[in-house]
């Protein structure tokens, strides 16, 4: 089987039962993504697949052979952090750090959803999306932090969203095609 992860091609012969998460961690040495619950409840395994955040533990590797996959390793490097990684560092958005790769991938995917104008459960008028703290909390509810670093996580995400400027937070025109998957990968 062939996989495209962080813009690199990998070949791996894995059992059909292998999850996308186990493929990365156990077979390809990409251990940045973490296994928490392994049942889609905690979000520690969150990756970006074709630009969208998903739970890699609840997806079979065999079903992702044609996809563009981005893990935390593909977002930034120690020398050149992704803005979301830098913001988590500067706001101390973690304590033990186990959920952090999933939080960061999820936050990057989440902000892209906001750019597309997607509403959330707490959005008042579904046509008027703005990124309040309540919106950030609701949209990140699929990522659990048992150290409860939530206030600092929200601070970090708010800072990155703010870097877009006011214009960027407004909803994209409805007709706009989805953004290409990996704008940020080269960072």
């Amino acid at each position, binding site marked *: 089987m062939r996989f495209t992860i962080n813009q690199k091609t990998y070949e791996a012969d894995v*059992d*059909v*039962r292998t*999850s996308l998460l186990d493929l990365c961690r156990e077979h390809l040495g990409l251990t940045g993504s973490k296994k928490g619950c*392994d*049942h*889609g409840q905690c*979000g520690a395994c*969150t990756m970006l697949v074709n630009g*969208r*955040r*998903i*739970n890699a533990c*609840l*997806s*079979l590797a*065999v*079903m992702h052979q044609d996809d563009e996959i981005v893990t935390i390793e593909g977002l930034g490097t120690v020398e050149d952090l992704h803005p979301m990684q830098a913001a988590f560092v500067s706001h101390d958005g973690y304590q033990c750090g186990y959920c952090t790769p999933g939080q960061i991938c*999820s936050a990057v*995917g*989440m902000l892209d*959803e906001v750019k*597309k*104008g*997607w*509403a*959330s*459960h707490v*959005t008042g008028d*579904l*046509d008027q999306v703005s990124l309040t703290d309540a919106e950030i*909390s*609701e*949209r*990140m*509810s*699929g*990522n659990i932090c048992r150290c409860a670093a939530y206030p600092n996580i929200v601070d970090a995400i708010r800072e990155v969203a703010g870097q877009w400027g006011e214009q960027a937070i407004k909803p994209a025109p*409805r007709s706009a095609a989805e953004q290409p998957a990996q704008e940020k990968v080269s960072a």
Partner: protein
Amino acid sequence: MKTFDYQRADTIEAATHANGRFIAGGTNLLDLMKLQVETPERLVDISRLDLNGIEEREDGGLSIGALVPNSDLAADPRVVEKYEVLSRALLAGASGQLRNKASTGGNLLQRTRCYYFYDTASRCNKRAPGSGCDAIGGFNRILAVLGTSEQCIATHPSDMAVAMRALDATIVTQKADGDKRRISIHDFYRLPGDTPQIETVLDAGELITHVELPAPPAGKQVYRKVRDRASYAFALVSVAGVIEVKDGVVASAALAFGGLGPMPWRNPAVEAAIVGRAPSTEAFEAAADALLADAKGYGSNDFKIPLARRTLIATLRDLTA
């Protein structure tokens, strides 16, 4: 997880002939396979079929491909504008990650979250027909008070399907012999009775290809969900409501309920109790009486009966304000 044969279907015909269990998003099925609650011998990957579109129909309604992810359906501008109850229901369910993966067809077919169904050490007539039900007499706080049987008190977990039931959706399928069926959502689910393992009227190999919504209904639309935490939790009680008030009188009403029964629940008597009447507490109480006339609690879930009454009345106030 038990091993299985994996096959990717390139056409609908190939999928329906593959004689296996369909997998699209997999967010529910793989979870159950890890626990060996589900042990399919063959998985048929339908995720690459061309069923990803949402199209307008001649009658003014929408045709939704079975593979449209929940997040795309919730964000579709036509759904946001004309079927707000559906957007709201979708956004009230699961997490951002799960909504990105979960499909429209899979959401309709997701299994109950009854603890005893998930726990293979427990007796469960849905998982192991004839074994018994440990939920009755057990920890049944989240389980059903309507439509139950002596064999099963599981609830259907979907929010989306509750809104679709209020919107009179039609489920379009294709069978292995090429026959296509259009099944009203009102006829799609089965009560548990003596066979709680059979949840829908679908035949083996029959694939959901689309869900059709009729032209948008007149009136105001609301989805109200009550749950144990504010986000990322299943409904204890939910109400999808569409009501039109004309000249001070309820002209039409569609009300469907989640968290109460083994299927997204709808009872015409609830709507009949308020249609033709001026909105009032008396009318709303009558609707709640109609909904809960046959409600039966099982101990830990007794609270759902008064909770459903209050949630319905609060929703009717919203809808007619």
